[in-house]
């Protein structure tokens, strides 16, 4: 059974718009883009694309220790809210 901390780290990793590092219980670590997690499957799993690999990989949640945010955040400063704030700033400076 996945711990609440692990589930939370998976959730954070899924929302993140950059690469993450997945630490496995066997001591290995894998870096890539985490894009899916199926907790309702008979054997819950996550899916990732790794750099240089053409097909995605699946890792069972029971083999996971932690998901860490390690790659660059490609969405930093580019959210809808940031865009709106930028629009407002441009409008204010033009007035």
């Amino acid at each position: 059974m996945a711990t609440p901390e692990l589930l939370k780290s998976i959730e954070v990793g899924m929302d993140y718009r950059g690469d993450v590092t997945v630490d496995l219980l066997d001591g290995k670590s894998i870096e890539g883009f985490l894009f899916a997690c199926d907790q309702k499957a008979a054997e819950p799993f996550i899916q990732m694309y790794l750099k240089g690999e053409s097909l995605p990989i699946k890792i069972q949640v029971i083999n996971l220790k932690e998901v860490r945010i390690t790659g660059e955040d490609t969405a930093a400063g580019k959210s809808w809210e940031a865009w709106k704030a930028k629009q407002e700033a441009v409008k204010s400076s033009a007035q």
Partner: protein
Amino acid sequence: MAVPISQMYTVASYVLGKKLSKTKRYPLVLMLEPLFKCNLACAGCGKIQYPEHIIQRRLTPEQCFAAVEECGAPMVSIPGGEPLLHPEIKQIVEGLVKRKKYIYLCTNAILLKSKIDLFTPSKYLTFSVHLDGLKDEHDHAVCRDGIFDVAVKGIKEALKRGFRVTTNTTLFDDANPERVREFFDFLTGLGIEGMMISPGYGYQKAPDQEHFLQRNRTTDLFKKILHQPKREWKFNLSPLFLRFLQGEKDYECTPWGMPAYNIFGWQKPCYLLGEGYASSFKELIETTEWDKYGNKSGNEKCTDCMVHCGFEATAVNDTFGSIRGFMDTVKFTINPSLV
């Protein structure tokens, strides 16, 4: 130029077939995203916010055809990223034309003039050019000067060669209604087949009152934009969707109406929200928790949403789902100034 009768017939007979077979959830348009790579970086666009190794990935033509065949929607929209950057876009389009799918190839048109020789005019192929307004507004929206002029040149070239051309426009609540109306006049003057307009999507973590105000701002904007619409304006939209945008129709979204497929799979629950992926269209329909989404679901991410990809299918469903819906569609189609 107007939508071909064959397309209207194909869509109408498809929807009626679904109604007669009592199919509750059926797709109208497949949003086929063959890649996320783009030659623009429009502020606020989430489609390009991925690591480089993801941006460089793309669907193969075979993956595109398999998705189209499984989904079965009569229309396929190809957004992205920028589809004209896909090295096999010619093969993808040819394969979809062969399968008699009505294609809307969405493009910022930067590469349209240079790549137009890859394509052959066909009733199945429409270039849907992204334009968010007149020159100042569009160049500001895409964060690069000169793109409006390039897009207009691309439109003119495509029209000259006999291609079907529409535009797609996203409007936020700070849009100037008079400028938008001038923009409609300009596009009409170019001779395009139709204009698609949609409010932008903005998810806000806000109390309910703020959501109410946001929806009101959106409907107020579209009431001003569409007040006494000119007869010559041609919209590539259901007239009932235009009524919805003005607050005259109360609709719930139909996220399965325009399902999205990309390198990750079938996106749950819709084109805008990426909350998981299914490996097949069947799995998407059967395993997505649809009750958790929609304006009335209580889901904050859906509360303010009025976008085209969620609600056009609802409007089409209304046309064929009730006498009132059908008669309204006929009324507004015959007399667009009533919209």
